[in-house]
């Protein structure tokens, strides 16, 4: 027996050396990831795929590809699988059941390259049943393992049974594994930029055309996924320059940094939000106002102010359980309905780029730069005027509701840095422009030709501050509804990469 193992190990070592193991850089998630099985966040688009899966034991049949990607942030490792599959079947619903007999995806990962045999497994079938093991030299518990805080969804999540169907084409899995599960083995939790781990991604094939495939190839002669020697190497890196959300703006640092990832299982699809809106307008408006706009007895949730509760989980808890000591009651809704309301409330404050703003984007750009006069004052990506704020990243900074209001309603207050001014200097020069900055003794003015005038108050003969902003509010009347919608669609997509 020992001899067999020795020989096997020798073969294994040789063949592993003979093949070069794949490598992959895991980039930081650049947007919050909603675990809904859809892989529709912009961050997933930016992430590179790991590469083709290998069919180590292939004999015959179609080799259906798998697209897998990984990302990370300070809390989680995210794994996404998109499985091309014409025969999808799954029946195991029991936690820790034999899911690999179904159509199933797996990740085995070893957080320490010097101890690759300490590895952890996550196996999820097409209907979302998971099996976990902790295969480490220190684990003394049962054969299965309960990782903390793992969230996962598949595109067929929660079905009691999935039988093969002629419509089958693909299925997908989205998985967030909290990094704190690996604190015992990982050199750093969360990993430092540049830390390397080893892991493999695998897939099993169910009943018809039951192909097994793996990201990192398994050496010839071995018939098991449990082969840590053959795990590929992944490196945790900060994202490439191109994949960063950019919040670069003269004066003001409006950003979306640090918004926590949500565990909302329903996501933010338009049907979910619409469902939430109906529930909300059915029972929440008494206190919070219709569409969250005007609240008599409770906060107007769409108002431009900070929430106390900003994560989906916090909102869920407030709706589900009420807020002790306030008028806010427990809603008495099923969990799924509560999540819908959460999605709706979040949508009230989402920035335009996170909403789906319909319209002809290209035509909206023409409205901005040509047929309307927006580009006279506002710049986008280096084109346009300087008197108004640069709008190159406005889709990531403001909601579409805010943008529409800015175009149609005069604002009571003019933001700092854009106050119109008309002054005459003691030398007799008349200057008409905006105040970039001022104090009791000096002022810095940009005139309408974009020239800067740096003045001491003692140089100023007379000065007036017109109350109307230079930003017109007539676009509700002067733009056709189509032009307005297209302009909003254009603006909502202005996100700097």
């Amino acid at each position: 027996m020992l001899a067999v193992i020795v020989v096997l190990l020798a073969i294994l070592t040789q063949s592993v050396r003979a093949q070069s193991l794949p490598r992959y850089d895991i980039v930081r998630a650049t947007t919050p990831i909603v675990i809904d099985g859809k892989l529709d966040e912009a961050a997933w688009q930016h992430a590179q795929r790991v590469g083709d899966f290998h069919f180590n034991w292939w004999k015959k049949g179609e080799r259906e590809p798998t697209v897998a990607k990984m990302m990370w942030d300070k809390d989680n490792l995210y794994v996404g699988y998109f499985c091309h599959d014409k025969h999808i079947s799954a029946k195991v619903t029991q936690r820790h059941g034999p899911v690999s007999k179904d159509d199933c995806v797996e990740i085995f990962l070893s957080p320490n390259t010097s101890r690759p045999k300490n590895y952890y497994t996550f196996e999820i079938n097409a209907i979302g049943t998971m099996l976990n093991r902790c295969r480490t030299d220190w684990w003394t518990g049962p054969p299965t393992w309960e990782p903390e805080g793992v969230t996962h969804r598949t595109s067929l999540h929660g079905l009691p049974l999935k039988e093969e169907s002629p419509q089958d084409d693909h299925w997908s899995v989205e998985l967030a594994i909290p990094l704190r599960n690996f604190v015992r083995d990982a050199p750093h939790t969360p990993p430092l930029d540049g830390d390397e781990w080893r892991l493999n991604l695998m897939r099993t094939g169910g009943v018809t055309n039951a192909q097994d495939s793996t990201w990192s190839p398994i050496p010839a002669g071995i018939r098991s996924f449990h082969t840590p020697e053959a795990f590929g190497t992944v490196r945790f890196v900060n994202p490439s320059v191109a994949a960063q959300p950019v919040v670069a703006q003269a004066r003001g640092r409006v950003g979306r940094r640090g918004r926590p990832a949500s565990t909302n299982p329903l996501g933010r699809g338009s049907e979910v939000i619409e469902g939430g809106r109906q529930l909300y307008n059915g029972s929440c408006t008494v206190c919070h106002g219709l569409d969250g706009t005007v609240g008599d007895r409770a906060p107007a949730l769409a108002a431009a102010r900070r929430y106390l509760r900003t994560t989906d989980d916090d909102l869920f808890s407030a709706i589900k359980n009420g807020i002790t000591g306030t008028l806010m009651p427990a809603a008495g809704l099923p969990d799924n309905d509560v999540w819908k309301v959460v999605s709706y409330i979040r949508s009230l404050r989402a920035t335009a780029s996170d909403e789906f703003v319909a319209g002809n984007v290209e035509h909206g750009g023409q409205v901005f730069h040509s047929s309307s006069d927006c580009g006279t004052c506002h710049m986008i990506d280096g084109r346009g005027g300087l008197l108004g704020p640069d709008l190159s990243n406005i889709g990531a900074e403001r909601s579409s509701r805010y943008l529409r209001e800015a175009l149609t309603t005069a604002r009571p207050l003019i933001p700092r840095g854009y106050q119109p001014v008309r002054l005459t200097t003691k030398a007799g020069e008349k200057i008409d422009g905006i105040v970039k900055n001022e104090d009791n003794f000096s002022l810095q003015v940009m005139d309408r030709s974009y020239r800067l005038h740096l003045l001491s108050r003692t140089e100023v003969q007379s000065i007036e501050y017109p109350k109307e902003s230079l930003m017109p509010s007539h676009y509700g009347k002067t733009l056709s509804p189509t032009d307005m919608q297209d302009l909003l669609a254009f603006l909502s997509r202005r996100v700097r990469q």
Partner: protein
Amino acid sequence: MRLAILCMAAAGIAAAQVSYKDLVKPNPANWLMYSGTYDSQRHSALKQIHTGNVKSIVPKWIYHVPGATRLETVPLVVDGVMYISQPNEVYAIDAQSGRLIWEYHHQPATERGPNRGVSVYGNRVYLSTPSAELVALDSRSGNLLWKIKLAEARDGYWSPAAPLALKDKVIVGIAPGDHGLNGWLDAYDAATGERLWRWNVIPKPGETGSDSWAGDSWKTGGGDTWLTGSYDPELNLLYWGTGNPAPDFNGDQRKGDNLYTESMIALDADTGKMKWYFQFTPHDVHDWDAVEIPVLLDAPIDGKTRKLLVQANRNGFYYVLDRVTGQFLSGTPFVKLLNWATGLTPQGRPIRVPGIVPTLQGTKTCPATAGATNWMSPAYSPDTKLFYVVAQEGCGINTKSTDTFRPGGYSFMATGYIESPEEPWQMHVRALEVATGKLVWDYPQLSAKRYGAGLLSTAGGLLFAGDDQGQFAALDARSGKPLWHFNTGQQISASPIAYGFKGKDYVAIAAGSNVVAFGLPE
């Protein structure tokens, strides 16, 4: 001309476009590039503040840069607008009042420093970033016009130096050679960011100079361009110093001279083709980058006026080169603690003292790796004909190990040095006779740490110098006698500038986390 300036001042018009003509012959009221002028003399023609009244100058304003710790920025001033930078950030302020006009915050805000300044051309401000990008901003509003990738930040590249703008181009260098990443100098189209040429510091096999690297050692040879160079508009030549070879302290695997590390390079500004080079420290094992500012000046040598390039090098020698041909004319030690070479050959090659190389146990080496000088700018006064340099007297114990290159921006130095416990570290401001390097006066700066501030010479007969204790002082440029000082309260690690606005002259310097401007009382 004077009248024209006055008229503009009266109208209060600021932030006009900066043309190439302006850069070649700057209005003395403006400070348009890192070293003041293309010749990098750091000499201001402003003389309202002079030896007779400097004792009465007062701080006019302080601008605190949010989040800054130890600024190394050299502010630029264009018609009353001052541009200051720190890594990932630019602030435009009213140079008369110190009030903010706009600010720019770059994303990704990779944490890496320092940033030594920006450059200006047309209506644009150029910033290079820790993420190895070049950014063009509208100089009036701070709007981001475009950004381009210089190199792969994930490989470890970044760009700390102020770019240099000329003739519709922006010249940009890169760091760090200490990670075994080969350097280059790039030219980009000032309007679009399109790359016009690249000159590689380390020649590839088959190219001239490649035989100065053993085996494959050229692949990780370092040689970066992390300070700003100089330019001669008449000769149309760029002069740039290059950094150390890698691994820094172990030369065993890179036998040969290791061209073109630790060299002065003259490049045709239009094509990026090398006109000449001069290598200061062939096959260095002490991390003595030769990026120190090349100062261009014309002075008599043996009775005949010549176009010169002078550099006080980190290796302890003050070099005088002919900047047309690159011919070595002379080299003289400007520090007393120098034990690695007995002198230079007639061609300028060091005559080495055997055994002064890093070892496992450590070898005492003078100057220390921090260098006889470093990034702190020198200055030259055409009035006194003196070259001013911040000299660092000190020694190091240099050690050596074996190291292998790892991609991804890891240090590749094969160990390093500690300061020698036997000699105290001492900073000096020294004035040298420009043609001979002979010491004319010496102003010791009481200092605890290394790396002080750079210098500024003015037509008022003054030399401004800061130190690591936070003192900003004006010295008599002819004698080195201190005439004025101000305690800025924070360690100074940047170089001062002079500018004027609305008929008043100012001197400004980044001190710790602040920029402070000084002028005569009202």
